[in-house]
């Protein structure tokens, strides 16, 4: 399946090359090209894409400003002619970094790497065993520490996104698996789990109390995201 993407790039020649490479690869579908961050954000508020090709230095806001304001987590390939941004790229957990101008071969390597990564994320979300009595089991398996670990759903306090990884927090210990919160939300979690923030899914049966916009559970404090407050209020029967 093709990855949908947008190109955020102020230099037309660079954007044209990217578009041409996307067409040639047949692995990526370009949904749009934006010359600046504000136009790109306006589009991303309406539409979701799998991948952003993002330049850093543009007039007005830069590429990192866009990443700060994104409300979801598509895959990111930075396209820049400066190598100095590598550290920032690492901090922002970008998926790859293409130094302009780059060849089709380098582009293709990057896209194939993302496809493998995407497939690995999907595969790491292991469904319950075939012998399980029904799909709505009270446990799940996660890939961590080179094995499949069985976790009782009831033992999970909350899940925390760590970009390409998810941390499962239980009273006894934490487990980190290679996946995304979105994947967990869609495939594994039952009715007792609620996304309360872009980085957190909480087991609502474990909540001790809520103060302001913070959930307290077993000594942990979880923020409630602005966009999730109504849903939290509805789900928790807050009177």
């Amino acid at each position, binding site marked *: 399946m093709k990855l949908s993407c947008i190109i955020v790039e*102020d*230099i*037309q*020649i*660079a954007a*044209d*090359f990217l578009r*041409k490479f996307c067409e040639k690869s047949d692995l990526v579908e370009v949904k749009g090209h934006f010359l600046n961050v504000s136009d790109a954000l306006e589009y991303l508020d309406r539409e979701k894409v799998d991948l952003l090709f993002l330049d850093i*230095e543009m007039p007005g806001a830069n590429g990192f400003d866009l990443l700060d304001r994104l409300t979801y987590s598509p895959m990111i390939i930075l396209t820049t*002619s*400066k190598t100095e941004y590598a550290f920032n790229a690492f901090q922002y957990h970008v998926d790859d970094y293409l130094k*302009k*101008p780059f*060849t*089709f*071969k380098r582009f293709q390597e990057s896209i194939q790497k993302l496809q493998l990564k995407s497939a690995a994320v999907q595969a790491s979300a292991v469904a319950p065993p075939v012998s399980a009595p029904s799909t709505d089991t009270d446990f799940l398996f996660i890939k961590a520490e080179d094995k499949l670990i069985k976790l009782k759903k009831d033992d999970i306090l909350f899940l925390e996104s760590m970009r390409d990884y998810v941390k499962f927090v239980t009273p006894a210990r934490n487990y980190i698996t290679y996946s995304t919160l979105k994947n967990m939300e869609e495939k594994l979690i039952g009715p007792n789990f609620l996304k309360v923030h872009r980085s957190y899914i909480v087991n609502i049966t474990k909540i001790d109390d809520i103060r302001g916009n913070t959930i307290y559970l077993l000594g942990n404090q979880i923020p409630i995201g602005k966009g999730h407050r109504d849903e939290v209020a509805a789900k928790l029967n807050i009177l």
Partner: protein
Amino acid sequence: MPNIRSGFVFDECLNSAFLAELFDGDTIYAETVFEDFLRDLPVYWQRVDNAFENENLPVLGTCVHTCKTLFGYVGFTDLQELCQQFENNCSVNRMDDLRDDYRLLTERKEKAQRVIEKEYNRLREYNEANG
């Protein structure tokens, strides 16, 4: 180095090995890119000149950065390096320290523009002949 796939040989001042890989024998697209370069460079360089006249070093660095990227797409690897040095100097030097470098960079840019004009014409003729 000759472009094996297309038979077109780029000017020796350009990084022809890189261009051969970048265009992969597609001289029609190379012609388009060289044409776009000639269209865009004067616009971007005007911003460089304006920033220099206004003695706005941060903007000057950013504008040279953009031109550096453009030079890369037509194979001026050495000019890219010169732009990078100038861009770095914009963040640490004073305006007076940059005047000689700016003059040199402008001369190199003009020479580059002439080379690309010539290469664009050669590409156009080559593509017409090999239609």
